[in-house]
Protein backbone atom coordinates (compact mmCIF):
# COMPACT_ATOMS: atom_id res chain seq x y z
CA UNK A 1 0.00 0.00 0.00
CA UNK A 2 2.85 2.38 0.77
CA UNK A 3 4.18 1.77 -2.69
CA UNK A 4 0.82 2.65 -4.16
CA UNK A 5 0.81 5.90 -2.27
CA UNK A 6 3.95 7.16 -3.95
CA UNK A 7 2.49 6.37 -7.30
CA UNK A 8 0.99 9.26 -9.12
CA UNK A 9 -0.67 6.80 -11.45
CA UNK A 10 -1.42 3.13 -11.14
CA UNK A 11 -3.04 1.43 -14.09
CA UNK A 12 -4.40 -1.98 -13.24
CA UNK A 13 -5.29 -4.50 -15.97
CA UNK A 14 -6.76 -1.83 -18.19
CA UNK A 15 -8.68 -3.09 -21.17
CA UNK A 16 -9.86 -0.85 -24.01
CA UNK A 17 -11.68 -2.49 -26.87
CA UNK A 18 -13.04 -1.23 -30.14
CA UNK A 19 -16.25 -2.84 -31.17
CA UNK A 20 -16.44 -3.25 -34.93
CA UNK A 21 -18.59 -5.31 -37.21
CA UNK A 22 -15.84 -7.91 -37.42
CA UNK A 23 -15.66 -8.23 -33.65
CA UNK A 24 -13.87 -6.64 -30.73
CA UNK A 25 -10.48 -5.13 -31.48
CA UNK A 26 -8.47 -5.49 -28.30
CA UNK A 27 -6.40 -2.33 -28.54
CA UNK A 28 -5.42 -2.42 -24.88
CA UNK A 29 -5.76 -5.82 -23.32
CA UNK A 30 -4.90 -6.01 -19.67
CA UNK A 31 -2.20 -3.41 -19.19
CA UNK A 32 -0.79 -2.90 -15.71
CA UNK A 33 1.83 -0.36 -14.76
CA UNK A 34 2.57 2.45 -12.37
CA UNK A 35 4.29 5.81 -12.55
CA UNK A 36 5.86 7.48 -9.56
CA UNK A 37 5.99 11.16 -8.82
CA UNK A 38 8.65 12.85 -10.91
CA UNK A 39 9.41 9.74 -12.88
CA UNK A 40 9.43 9.49 -16.64
CA UNK A 41 8.42 6.23 -18.19
CA UNK A 42 8.69 5.29 -21.83
CA UNK A 43 6.02 3.21 -23.52
CA UNK A 44 7.42 1.76 -26.73
CA UNK A 45 5.99 -0.46 -29.37
CA UNK A 46 5.24 -0.50 -33.05
CA UNK A 47 2.35 1.27 -34.72
CA UNK A 48 -1.04 -0.06 -33.73
CA UNK A 49 0.05 -1.92 -30.63
CA UNK A 50 -2.17 0.18 -28.38
CA UNK A 51 0.26 2.73 -26.97
CA UNK A 52 -1.77 5.80 -27.92
CA UNK A 53 -4.98 4.15 -26.78
CA UNK A 54 -3.40 3.51 -23.39
CA UNK A 55 -2.65 7.24 -23.17
CA UNK A 56 -6.11 8.28 -24.27
CA UNK A 57 -7.73 5.76 -21.93
CA UNK A 58 -6.04 7.39 -18.95
CA UNK A 59 -7.74 10.65 -19.87
CA UNK A 60 -10.95 8.77 -20.70
CA UNK A 61 -10.84 10.17 -24.23
CA UNK A 62 -11.12 6.94 -26.18
CA UNK A 63 -12.66 7.76 -29.56
CA UNK A 64 -16.38 7.18 -29.65
CA UNK A 65 -18.42 5.55 -31.03
CA UNK A 66 -16.72 2.18 -31.03
CA UNK A 67 -14.01 2.58 -28.44
CA UNK A 68 -14.76 1.65 -24.87
CA UNK A 69 -12.85 0.98 -21.70
CA UNK A 70 -14.20 -2.43 -20.72
CA UNK A 71 -12.25 -3.18 -17.60
CA UNK A 72 -9.53 -2.41 -15.12
CA UNK A 73 -8.74 0.47 -12.84
CA UNK A 74 -6.86 3.69 -13.40
CA UNK A 75 -5.81 5.05 -10.03
CA UNK A 76 -4.69 8.63 -10.00
CA UNK A 77 -3.56 9.50 -6.48
CA UNK A 78 -5.52 6.42 -5.35
CA UNK A 79 -8.74 7.61 -6.94
CA UNK A 80 -10.19 5.52 -9.71
CA UNK A 81 -10.61 7.69 -12.79
CA UNK A 82 -12.96 5.14 -14.31
CA UNK A 83 -15.46 5.81 -11.52
CA UNK A 84 -15.49 9.55 -12.10
CA UNK A 85 -18.21 11.46 -13.87
CA UNK A 86 -17.65 13.35 -17.10
CA UNK A 87 -17.56 16.71 -15.34
CA UNK A 88 -14.98 15.52 -12.80
CA UNK A 89 -12.86 14.14 -15.64
CA UNK A 90 -13.09 17.46 -17.47
CA UNK A 91 -11.65 19.15 -14.41
CA UNK A 92 -8.75 16.74 -14.31
CA UNK A 93 -7.91 16.98 -17.99
CA UNK A 94 -5.48 19.73 -18.80
CA UNK A 95 -5.09 20.51 -15.12
CA UNK A 96 -3.78 17.47 -13.20
CA UNK A 97 -3.15 15.23 -16.18
CA UNK A 98 -2.40 16.68 -19.57
CA UNK A 99 -1.28 15.35 -22.87
CA UNK A 100 0.92 16.40 -25.75
CA UNK A 101 -0.57 15.13 -28.97
CA UNK A 102 1.27 13.80 -31.96
CA UNK A 103 1.48 15.81 -35.16
CA UNK A 104 1.79 19.36 -33.79
CA UNK A 105 1.07 21.04 -37.13
CA UNK A 106 -2.55 19.92 -37.18
CA UNK A 107 -3.27 19.73 -33.46
CA UNK A 108 -3.81 23.45 -33.06
CA UNK A 109 -7.01 25.06 -34.24
CA UNK A 110 -5.94 26.96 -37.32
CA UNK A 111 -8.55 29.67 -36.86
CA UNK A 112 -7.74 30.72 -33.32
CA UNK A 113 -4.76 32.73 -32.21
CA UNK A 114 -1.99 30.89 -30.43
CA UNK A 115 -2.47 33.06 -27.36
CA UNK A 116 -6.13 32.08 -27.12
CA UNK A 117 -5.35 28.40 -27.26
CA UNK A 118 -2.53 28.77 -24.76
CA UNK A 119 -4.83 30.37 -22.25
CA UNK A 120 -7.52 27.70 -22.54
CA UNK A 121 -6.53 25.27 -19.76
CA UNK A 122 -5.99 28.17 -17.37
CA UNK A 123 -9.37 29.62 -18.28
CA UNK A 124 -11.07 26.30 -17.59
CA UNK A 125 -9.28 25.36 -14.42
CA UNK A 126 -8.13 28.46 -12.57
CA UNK A 127 -9.64 31.65 -11.33
CA UNK A 128 -7.50 33.84 -13.48
CA UNK A 129 -5.81 36.50 -11.50
CA UNK A 130 -3.67 38.86 -13.56
CA UNK A 131 -3.59 39.09 -17.28
CA UNK A 132 -3.89 35.97 -19.38
CA UNK A 133 -1.73 37.61 -22.00
CA UNK A 134 1.12 38.01 -19.54
CA UNK A 135 0.76 34.38 -18.59
CA UNK A 136 0.83 33.28 -22.24
CA UNK A 137 3.95 35.29 -22.89
CA UNK A 138 5.60 33.75 -19.85
CA UNK A 139 4.65 30.28 -21.04
CA UNK A 140 5.97 30.88 -24.53
CA UNK A 141 9.17 32.20 -23.01
CA UNK A 142 9.37 29.07 -20.88
CA UNK A 143 9.23 26.82 -23.93
CA UNK A 144 11.74 29.08 -25.67
CA UNK A 145 9.65 30.52 -28.44
CA UNK A 146 11.54 33.59 -29.64
CA UNK A 147 9.91 37.02 -29.26
CA UNK A 148 6.85 35.71 -27.40
CA UNK A 149 5.28 39.18 -27.11
CA UNK A 150 4.69 39.19 -30.86
CA UNK A 151 4.07 35.47 -31.27
CA UNK A 152 1.06 35.28 -28.92
CA UNK A 153 -0.89 37.24 -31.48
CA UNK A 154 0.05 34.93 -34.34
CA UNK A 155 -2.01 32.15 -35.84
CA UNK A 156 -0.80 28.53 -35.83
CA UNK A 157 -0.08 28.52 -39.57
CA UNK A 158 2.56 31.16 -38.94
CA UNK A 159 4.45 28.70 -36.73
CA UNK A 160 6.86 26.01 -37.87
CA UNK A 161 6.44 22.40 -36.75
CA UNK A 162 8.94 22.69 -33.93
CA UNK A 163 7.38 25.93 -32.73
CA UNK A 164 3.91 24.35 -32.84
CA UNK A 165 5.21 21.50 -30.70
CA UNK A 166 6.59 24.03 -28.21
CA UNK A 167 3.19 25.68 -28.08
CA UNK A 168 1.56 22.30 -27.44
CA UNK A 169 4.00 21.66 -24.63
CA UNK A 170 3.26 25.10 -23.23
CA UNK A 171 -0.48 24.33 -23.31
CA UNK A 172 0.13 21.00 -21.60
CA UNK A 173 2.22 22.43 -18.77
CA UNK A 174 0.24 25.63 -18.29
CA UNK A 175 -1.53 24.28 -15.20
CA UNK A 176 1.54 22.41 -13.94
CA UNK A 177 0.07 18.93 -14.17
CA UNK A 178 1.17 15.98 -12.06
CA UNK A 179 1.30 13.77 -15.10
CA UNK A 180 2.17 14.62 -18.65
CA UNK A 181 1.34 12.08 -21.33
CA UNK A 182 3.50 12.76 -24.36
CA UNK A 183 2.21 10.91 -27.40
CA UNK A 184 5.00 10.74 -29.95
CA UNK A 185 6.08 14.29 -29.21
CA UNK A 186 8.90 14.30 -31.73
CA UNK A 187 7.66 12.05 -34.52
CA UNK A 188 6.75 14.78 -36.99
CA UNK A 189 9.89 16.81 -36.36
CA UNK A 190 13.36 16.66 -37.82
CA UNK A 191 16.26 15.48 -35.75
CA UNK A 192 17.73 18.76 -34.55
CA UNK A 193 14.32 19.98 -33.44
CA UNK A 194 13.72 16.59 -31.80
CA UNK A 195 16.76 17.07 -29.62
CA UNK A 196 15.62 20.53 -28.59
CA UNK A 197 12.13 19.35 -27.74
CA UNK A 198 13.47 16.44 -25.71
CA UNK A 199 15.78 18.58 -23.66
CA UNK A 200 12.91 20.98 -23.11
CA UNK A 201 10.74 18.13 -21.81
CA UNK A 202 13.55 17.05 -19.53
CA UNK A 203 13.98 20.55 -18.14
CA UNK A 204 10.28 20.96 -17.50
CA UNK A 205 10.14 17.64 -15.74
CA UNK A 206 12.93 18.66 -13.38
CA UNK A 207 11.46 22.09 -12.80
CA UNK A 208 7.93 21.01 -11.88
CA UNK A 209 8.71 17.44 -10.78
CA UNK A 210 6.15 16.26 -13.31
CA UNK A 211 5.76 12.60 -14.14
CA UNK A 212 5.94 11.83 -17.82
CA UNK A 213 4.49 8.94 -19.76
CA UNK A 214 6.35 9.09 -23.03
CA UNK A 215 4.70 7.18 -25.83
CA UNK A 216 7.01 6.55 -28.73
CA UNK A 217 8.36 3.98 -31.13
CA UNK A 218 11.83 5.44 -31.00
CA UNK A 219 14.10 3.66 -28.54
CA UNK A 220 16.71 6.41 -28.80
CA UNK A 221 14.29 8.94 -27.32
CA UNK A 222 13.44 6.60 -24.47
CA UNK A 223 17.13 6.10 -23.76
CA UNK A 224 17.62 9.84 -23.57
CA UNK A 225 14.94 10.94 -21.15
CA UNK A 226 13.24 8.01 -19.44
CA UNK A 227 13.95 6.33 -16.14
CA UNK A 228 12.03 3.22 -17.01
CA UNK A 229 10.76 1.63 -20.16
CA UNK A 230 7.79 -0.57 -20.95
CA UNK A 231 7.52 -2.50 -24.17
CA UNK A 232 4.08 -3.03 -25.57
CA UNK A 233 3.12 -5.66 -28.11
CA UNK A 234 -0.36 -6.37 -29.46
CA UNK A 235 -2.19 -4.65 -26.62
CA UNK A 236 -0.11 -5.97 -23.73
CA UNK A 237 3.00 -4.90 -21.92
CA UNK A 238 5.57 -7.62 -22.41
CA UNK A 239 8.55 -6.17 -20.61
CA UNK A 240 9.09 -3.52 -17.94
CA UNK A 241 12.53 -2.46 -16.93
CA UNK A 242 14.67 0.39 -15.69
CA UNK A 243 16.47 1.96 -18.61
CA UNK A 244 20.03 0.64 -18.09
CA UNK A 245 19.28 -3.08 -17.68
CA UNK A 246 16.89 -2.90 -20.59
CA UNK A 247 19.48 -1.76 -23.07
CA UNK A 248 22.15 -3.99 -21.56
CA UNK A 249 20.12 -7.17 -21.15
CA UNK A 250 16.76 -7.01 -22.82
CA UNK A 251 14.84 -10.10 -21.80
CA UNK A 252 11.92 -10.59 -24.14
CA UNK A 253 12.80 -11.86 -27.61
CA UNK A 254 10.75 -9.00 -29.04
CA UNK A 255 12.72 -6.40 -27.06
CA UNK A 256 15.95 -8.02 -28.19
CA UNK A 257 14.73 -7.77 -31.76
CA UNK A 258 13.74 -4.15 -31.32
CA UNK A 259 17.13 -3.16 -30.00
CA UNK A 260 18.89 -5.13 -32.69
CA UNK A 261 16.95 -3.44 -35.44
CA UNK A 262 18.25 -0.01 -34.46
CA UNK A 263 20.99 0.75 -36.98
CA UNK A 264 24.48 1.15 -35.53
CA UNK A 265 26.80 3.51 -37.28
CA UNK A 266 30.03 1.70 -36.55
CA UNK A 267 28.90 -1.65 -37.85
CA UNK A 268 28.64 -2.03 -41.59
CA UNK A 269 25.91 -4.41 -42.54
CA UNK A 270 24.36 -5.39 -45.84
CA UNK A 271 20.82 -5.41 -44.51
CA UNK A 272 19.33 -3.90 -41.41
CA UNK A 273 18.01 -6.43 -38.96
CA UNK A 274 14.26 -6.74 -38.81
CA UNK A 275 11.89 -8.98 -36.93
CA UNK A 276 10.31 -11.52 -39.23
CA UNK A 277 6.60 -11.36 -39.91
CA UNK A 278 3.90 -8.88 -39.09
CA UNK A 279 2.31 -7.97 -35.78
CA UNK A 280 -0.91 -9.95 -35.36
CA UNK A 281 -4.30 -8.49 -36.13
CA UNK A 282 -5.88 -7.29 -32.93
CA UNK A 283 -9.13 -8.83 -34.11
CA UNK A 284 -8.00 -12.42 -33.78
CA UNK A 285 -4.96 -12.73 -31.62
CA UNK A 286 -3.07 -15.99 -31.57
CA UNK A 287 -3.77 -18.17 -28.59
CA UNK A 288 -0.88 -18.18 -26.19
CA UNK A 289 1.85 -15.57 -26.44
CA UNK A 290 0.97 -12.95 -29.06
CA UNK A 291 4.55 -12.84 -30.22
CA UNK A 292 4.98 -16.61 -30.51
CA UNK A 293 4.34 -16.83 -34.28
CA UNK A 294 7.25 -14.47 -34.95
CA UNK A 295 9.48 -15.68 -32.13
CA UNK A 296 12.63 -17.67 -32.94
CA UNK A 297 12.74 -19.18 -29.47
CA UNK A 298 9.10 -20.19 -29.39
CA UNK A 299 8.37 -23.45 -27.60
CA UNK A 300 5.20 -25.50 -27.67
CA UNK A 301 3.87 -23.90 -24.50
CA UNK A 302 4.23 -20.43 -26.10
CA UNK A 303 1.48 -21.33 -28.58
CA UNK A 304 -0.80 -22.64 -25.88
CA UNK A 305 -1.08 -20.11 -23.10
CA UNK A 306 -0.08 -16.55 -22.41
CA UNK A 307 3.02 -16.31 -20.20
CA UNK A 308 2.72 -14.80 -16.72
CA UNK A 309 4.67 -11.75 -15.68
CA UNK A 310 7.98 -12.98 -14.34
CA UNK A 311 10.17 -10.81 -12.20
CA UNK A 312 13.85 -10.97 -13.14
CA UNK A 313 15.48 -8.33 -10.99
CA UNK A 314 14.41 -5.24 -9.11
CA UNK A 315 11.73 -3.62 -11.26
CA UNK A 316 12.64 -5.71 -14.27
CA UNK A 317 9.91 -8.07 -15.34
CA UNK A 318 9.04 -9.89 -18.50
CA UNK A 319 6.14 -11.89 -19.87
CA UNK A 320 7.88 -14.78 -21.54
CA UNK A 321 7.94 -18.54 -21.00
CA UNK A 322 11.69 -18.64 -21.57
CA UNK A 323 12.24 -17.27 -18.09
CA UNK A 324 9.74 -19.34 -16.18
CA UNK A 325 11.70 -22.52 -16.71
CA UNK A 326 14.79 -21.33 -14.96
Amino acid at each position, binding site marked *: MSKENQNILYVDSLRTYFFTRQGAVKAVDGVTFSIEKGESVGLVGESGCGKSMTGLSI*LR*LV*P*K*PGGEIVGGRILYKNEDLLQKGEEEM*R*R*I*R*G*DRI*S*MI*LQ*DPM*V*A*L*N*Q*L*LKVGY*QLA*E*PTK*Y*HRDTEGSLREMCIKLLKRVKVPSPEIRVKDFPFQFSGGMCQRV*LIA*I*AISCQPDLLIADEPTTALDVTIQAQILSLLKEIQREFNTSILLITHDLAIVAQICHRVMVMYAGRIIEKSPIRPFFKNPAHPYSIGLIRSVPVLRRRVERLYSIEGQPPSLLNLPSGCHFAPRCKDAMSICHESYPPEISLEQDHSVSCWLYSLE
Partner: protein
Amino acid sequence: MEPEIHLKKNVRRKIPVVALGMVGLFFFTVLFGPFITPHNPFKIDLNNAIRPPFWEEGGSTRNLLGTDAMGRDILSRLIYGARTSMIVSIFAILICGTIGVLLGLISGYYGGKIDTVIMRFTDLWMSMPTIITAILIVSVLGPSKKTVIIVVGVTGWITYARIVRGEVLSLKEAAFVRLARVAGCGHLRLIFSHLFPNILNTLIILVTLDFGRVIIITATLTFLGLGIQPPSASWGLMLAEGRQYITYAWWMTTFPGMAILLAVLGMNLTGDWLRDRLDPKQKLR
Protein backbone atom coordinates in the same frame (compact mmCIF):
# COMPACT_ATOMS: atom_id res chain seq x y z
CA MET B 1 5.64 26.45 -68.10
CA GLU B 2 5.66 28.83 -65.20
CA PRO B 3 3.82 31.78 -66.84
CA GLU B 4 1.14 29.51 -68.21
CA ILE B 5 0.31 28.14 -64.80
CA HIS B 6 0.27 31.62 -63.46
CA LEU B 7 -2.10 32.74 -66.17
CA LYS B 8 -4.47 29.87 -65.58
CA LYS B 9 -4.55 30.65 -61.91
CA ASN B 10 -5.37 34.27 -62.65
CA VAL B 11 -8.21 33.38 -64.94
CA ARG B 12 -9.70 31.08 -62.36
CA ARG B 13 -9.29 33.57 -59.56
CA LYS B 14 -10.83 36.36 -61.58
CA ILE B 15 -13.56 38.19 -59.80
CA PRO B 16 -16.91 37.53 -61.48
CA VAL B 17 -17.66 41.09 -62.55
CA VAL B 18 -21.10 40.32 -63.94
CA ALA B 19 -22.32 38.45 -60.87
CA LEU B 20 -20.92 40.97 -58.43
CA GLY B 21 -22.38 43.74 -60.61
CA MET B 22 -25.85 42.26 -60.28
CA VAL B 23 -25.48 41.82 -56.55
CA GLY B 24 -23.99 45.30 -56.27
CA LEU B 25 -26.94 46.84 -58.12
CA PHE B 26 -29.32 44.97 -55.85
CA PHE B 27 -27.61 46.19 -52.69
CA PHE B 28 -27.34 49.70 -54.07
CA THR B 29 -31.07 49.95 -54.67
CA VAL B 30 -31.73 48.45 -51.27
CA LEU B 31 -29.54 50.94 -49.46
CA PHE B 32 -30.35 54.09 -51.41
CA GLY B 33 -33.88 53.21 -52.53
CA PRO B 34 -35.71 56.32 -51.30
CA PHE B 35 -33.09 58.65 -52.79
CA ILE B 36 -33.08 57.24 -56.29
CA THR B 37 -36.74 56.51 -56.93
CA PRO B 38 -38.02 58.93 -59.52
CA HIS B 39 -41.58 58.82 -58.15
CA ASN B 40 -43.50 57.84 -55.10
CA PRO B 41 -44.07 54.11 -55.66
CA PHE B 42 -47.42 54.19 -53.88
CA LYS B 43 -48.97 57.20 -55.56
CA ILE B 44 -52.00 56.22 -57.61
CA ASP B 45 -52.61 58.25 -60.76
CA LEU B 46 -55.36 56.72 -62.83
CA ASN B 47 -54.99 59.29 -65.61
CA ASN B 48 -51.51 57.97 -66.17
CA ALA B 49 -52.29 54.21 -65.95
CA ILE B 50 -50.88 51.47 -68.17
CA ARG B 51 -48.16 53.58 -69.76
CA PRO B 52 -45.52 51.56 -71.67
CA PRO B 53 -41.78 52.06 -71.15
CA PHE B 54 -40.24 55.14 -72.71
CA TRP B 55 -39.03 53.53 -75.93
CA GLU B 56 -42.47 52.21 -76.84
CA GLU B 57 -45.09 54.23 -78.56
CA GLY B 58 -47.05 56.20 -76.02
CA GLY B 59 -44.34 55.96 -73.37
CA SER B 60 -42.57 58.93 -71.89
CA THR B 61 -39.32 59.52 -70.04
CA ARG B 62 -41.38 60.51 -67.03
CA ASN B 63 -42.00 56.81 -66.31
CA LEU B 64 -38.92 55.08 -67.66
CA LEU B 65 -40.29 51.56 -67.33
CA GLY B 66 -43.92 52.53 -67.67
CA THR B 67 -46.75 52.45 -65.15
CA ASP B 68 -49.06 49.77 -63.85
CA ALA B 69 -52.83 49.54 -63.90
CA MET B 70 -53.13 52.18 -61.20
CA GLY B 71 -50.65 54.53 -62.72
CA ARG B 72 -47.85 53.78 -60.28
CA ASP B 73 -44.29 54.03 -61.57
CA ILE B 74 -42.87 50.55 -62.24
CA LEU B 75 -39.22 51.53 -61.76
CA SER B 76 -39.93 53.05 -58.36
CA ARG B 77 -41.90 50.03 -57.33
CA LEU B 78 -39.09 47.74 -58.46
CA ILE B 79 -36.64 49.67 -56.32
CA TYR B 80 -38.89 49.45 -53.29
CA GLY B 81 -39.53 45.80 -54.09
CA ALA B 82 -35.80 45.16 -53.77
CA ARG B 83 -35.93 46.51 -50.24
CA THR B 84 -38.86 44.28 -49.39
CA SER B 85 -37.02 41.25 -50.74
CA MET B 86 -33.93 42.16 -48.80
CA ILE B 87 -35.71 42.63 -45.50
CA VAL B 88 -37.60 39.38 -45.88
CA SER B 89 -34.44 37.53 -46.92
CA ILE B 90 -32.33 38.81 -44.06
CA PHE B 91 -34.80 37.93 -41.34
CA ALA B 92 -35.82 34.65 -42.92
CA ILE B 93 -32.20 33.56 -43.27
CA LEU B 94 -31.49 34.64 -39.72
CA ILE B 95 -34.27 32.38 -38.52
CA CYS B 96 -33.51 29.33 -40.65
CA GLY B 97 -29.77 29.80 -40.29
CA THR B 98 -29.96 29.89 -36.51
CA ILE B 99 -32.25 26.88 -36.25
CA GLY B 100 -30.32 24.90 -38.87
CA VAL B 101 -26.84 25.67 -37.57
CA LEU B 102 -27.79 24.91 -33.97
CA LEU B 103 -29.44 21.60 -34.84
CA GLY B 104 -26.60 20.69 -37.20
CA LEU B 105 -23.95 21.41 -34.59
CA ILE B 106 -25.74 19.44 -31.91
CA SER B 107 -26.59 16.58 -34.20
CA GLY B 108 -23.10 16.26 -35.64
CA TYR B 109 -21.25 16.73 -32.39
CA TYR B 110 -23.18 14.51 -30.05
CA GLY B 111 -24.10 11.86 -32.59
CA GLY B 112 -25.87 8.73 -31.43
CA LYS B 113 -29.50 8.95 -30.42
CA ILE B 114 -29.65 12.75 -30.50
CA ASP B 115 -28.34 12.68 -34.05
CA THR B 116 -30.85 10.07 -35.11
CA VAL B 117 -33.77 11.97 -33.62
CA ILE B 118 -32.78 15.28 -35.21
CA MET B 119 -32.04 13.77 -38.60
CA ARG B 120 -35.28 11.81 -38.73
CA PHE B 121 -37.07 15.00 -37.77
CA THR B 122 -35.48 16.82 -40.71
CA ASP B 123 -36.51 13.96 -43.00
CA LEU B 124 -40.05 14.36 -41.75
CA TRP B 125 -39.92 18.11 -42.20
CA MET B 126 -38.49 17.76 -45.67
CA SER B 127 -41.34 15.55 -46.78
CA MET B 128 -43.79 18.41 -46.23
CA PRO B 129 -44.11 20.58 -49.33
CA THR B 130 -43.15 24.19 -48.67
CA ILE B 131 -46.30 25.58 -50.20
CA ILE B 132 -48.57 23.39 -48.10
CA THR B 133 -46.73 24.40 -44.95
CA ALA B 134 -46.97 27.99 -46.08
CA ILE B 135 -50.72 27.79 -46.62
CA LEU B 136 -51.09 26.25 -43.17
CA ILE B 137 -49.09 28.98 -41.48
CA VAL B 138 -50.70 31.76 -43.47
CA SER B 139 -54.18 30.52 -42.66
CA VAL B 140 -53.29 30.64 -38.99
CA LEU B 141 -51.37 33.91 -38.89
CA GLY B 142 -52.86 35.74 -41.84
CA PRO B 143 -50.86 36.92 -44.83
CA SER B 144 -48.21 39.57 -44.13
CA LYS B 145 -44.53 40.25 -44.46
CA LYS B 146 -43.96 38.74 -41.02
CA THR B 147 -45.74 35.56 -42.04
CA VAL B 148 -43.56 35.21 -45.13
CA ILE B 149 -40.48 35.55 -42.96
CA ILE B 150 -41.74 32.89 -40.59
CA VAL B 151 -42.72 30.54 -43.40
CA VAL B 152 -39.38 30.81 -45.16
CA GLY B 153 -37.57 30.61 -41.85
CA VAL B 154 -39.18 27.42 -40.64
CA THR B 155 -39.06 25.64 -43.98
CA GLY B 156 -35.50 26.47 -44.96
CA TRP B 157 -33.40 25.30 -42.02
CA ILE B 158 -33.03 21.73 -43.24
CA THR B 159 -30.22 22.49 -45.68
CA TYR B 160 -28.30 24.28 -42.96
CA ALA B 161 -28.80 21.49 -40.47
CA ARG B 162 -27.66 18.79 -42.88
CA ILE B 163 -24.64 20.58 -44.26
CA VAL B 164 -23.46 21.81 -40.86
CA ARG B 165 -23.91 18.31 -39.44
CA GLY B 166 -21.76 16.89 -42.21
CA GLU B 167 -19.05 19.47 -41.61
CA VAL B 168 -19.06 18.82 -37.88
CA LEU B 169 -18.91 15.06 -38.41
CA SER B 170 -15.66 15.40 -40.30
CA LEU B 171 -14.29 18.18 -38.09
CA LYS B 172 -14.84 16.43 -34.80
CA GLU B 173 -12.24 13.82 -35.70
CA ALA B 174 -9.70 16.61 -36.22
CA ALA B 175 -6.71 16.81 -33.93
CA PHE B 176 -7.61 20.26 -32.66
CA VAL B 177 -10.84 18.93 -31.20
CA ARG B 178 -8.88 16.30 -29.31
CA LEU B 179 -6.47 18.97 -28.13
CA ALA B 180 -9.32 21.04 -26.78
CA ARG B 181 -10.74 17.97 -25.02
CA VAL B 182 -7.35 17.18 -23.54
CA ALA B 183 -7.14 20.75 -22.26
CA GLY B 184 -10.38 20.16 -20.38
CA CYS B 185 -12.73 21.99 -22.70
CA GLY B 186 -16.43 21.36 -22.10
CA HIS B 187 -18.85 20.32 -24.83
CA LEU B 188 -20.67 23.61 -25.34
CA ARG B 189 -17.48 25.61 -25.37
CA LEU B 190 -15.93 23.19 -27.82
CA ILE B 191 -18.92 23.48 -30.13
CA PHE B 192 -19.12 27.24 -30.13
CA SER B 193 -15.56 28.47 -29.83
CA HIS B 194 -13.76 25.68 -31.70
CA LEU B 195 -16.10 24.03 -34.15
CA PHE B 196 -18.28 26.99 -35.09
CA PRO B 197 -15.46 29.20 -36.48
CA ASN B 198 -14.38 26.26 -38.59
CA ILE B 199 -17.72 25.98 -40.36
CA LEU B 200 -18.01 29.71 -41.05
CA ASN B 201 -16.71 29.52 -44.61
CA THR B 202 -19.30 26.90 -45.48
CA LEU B 203 -21.93 29.01 -43.80
CA ILE B 204 -21.06 32.11 -45.84
CA ILE B 205 -21.46 30.15 -49.06
CA LEU B 206 -24.69 28.62 -47.85
CA VAL B 207 -26.20 31.97 -46.91
CA THR B 208 -25.32 33.53 -50.26
CA LEU B 209 -26.88 30.66 -52.16
CA ASP B 210 -29.89 30.73 -49.89
CA PHE B 211 -30.67 34.35 -50.74
CA GLY B 212 -31.75 33.28 -54.20
CA ARG B 213 -34.02 30.61 -52.81
CA VAL B 214 -35.63 33.00 -50.34
CA ILE B 215 -36.28 35.63 -53.01
CA ILE B 216 -38.00 33.04 -55.19
CA ILE B 217 -40.12 31.63 -52.38
CA THR B 218 -41.12 35.10 -51.25
CA ALA B 219 -42.16 35.99 -54.78
CA THR B 220 -44.04 32.70 -55.16
CA LEU B 221 -45.96 33.10 -51.93
CA THR B 222 -46.77 36.69 -52.71
CA PHE B 223 -47.86 35.82 -56.23
CA LEU B 224 -50.26 33.29 -54.78
CA GLY B 225 -51.63 35.93 -52.45
CA LEU B 226 -50.18 34.24 -49.38
CA GLY B 227 -47.43 36.73 -48.76
CA ILE B 228 -46.95 40.43 -48.87
CA GLN B 229 -50.22 42.26 -49.35
CA PRO B 230 -51.03 45.30 -51.46
CA PRO B 231 -50.32 48.15 -51.54
CA SER B 232 -46.75 47.18 -50.50
CA ALA B 233 -44.19 47.16 -53.26
CA SER B 234 -42.92 43.66 -53.86
CA TRP B 235 -41.78 41.83 -56.95
CA GLY B 236 -44.11 38.91 -56.46
CA LEU B 237 -47.03 41.24 -55.95
CA MET B 238 -46.18 43.17 -59.11
CA LEU B 239 -46.16 39.90 -61.04
CA ALA B 240 -49.55 38.97 -59.63
CA GLU B 241 -51.06 42.35 -60.35
CA GLY B 242 -49.69 42.51 -63.86
CA ARG B 243 -50.82 39.01 -64.76
CA GLN B 244 -54.25 39.99 -66.05
CA TYR B 245 -52.74 42.63 -68.35
CA ILE B 246 -50.01 40.38 -69.71
CA THR B 247 -51.41 40.24 -73.25
CA TYR B 248 -51.26 43.97 -73.90
CA ALA B 249 -49.07 45.40 -71.10
CA TRP B 250 -46.05 43.09 -71.01
CA TRP B 251 -43.93 45.54 -69.01
CA MET B 252 -45.97 45.06 -65.85
CA THR B 253 -44.82 41.45 -65.50
CA THR B 254 -41.57 41.41 -67.47
CA PHE B 255 -39.66 43.92 -65.38
CA PRO B 256 -40.36 42.41 -61.96
CA GLY B 257 -39.64 39.01 -63.47
CA MET B 258 -36.30 40.23 -64.70
CA ALA B 259 -35.55 41.80 -61.34
CA ILE B 260 -36.10 38.44 -59.65
CA LEU B 261 -34.01 36.69 -62.28
CA LEU B 262 -31.08 39.09 -61.98
CA ALA B 263 -31.08 39.15 -58.19
CA VAL B 264 -31.25 35.35 -57.88
CA LEU B 265 -28.74 34.74 -60.64
CA GLY B 266 -26.34 37.27 -59.19
CA MET B 267 -26.55 35.73 -55.74
CA ASN B 268 -26.11 32.20 -57.05
CA LEU B 269 -23.13 33.09 -59.21
CA THR B 270 -21.55 34.94 -56.31
CA GLY B 271 -22.21 31.93 -54.11
CA ASP B 272 -20.53 29.59 -56.59
CA TRP B 273 -17.56 31.88 -56.83
CA LEU B 274 -17.30 32.12 -53.05
CA ARG B 275 -17.42 28.34 -52.84
CA ASP B 276 -14.47 28.07 -55.20
CA ARG B 277 -12.55 30.68 -53.26
CA LEU B 278 -13.35 29.60 -49.72
CA ASP B 279 -13.31 25.84 -50.04
CA PRO B 280 -9.75 24.77 -49.33
CA LYS B 281 -10.30 21.40 -50.98
CA GLN B 282 -11.27 22.96 -54.28
CA LYS B 283 -8.40 25.45 -54.27
CA LEU B 284 -5.84 22.70 -54.62
CA ARG B 285 -7.25 21.46 -57.88
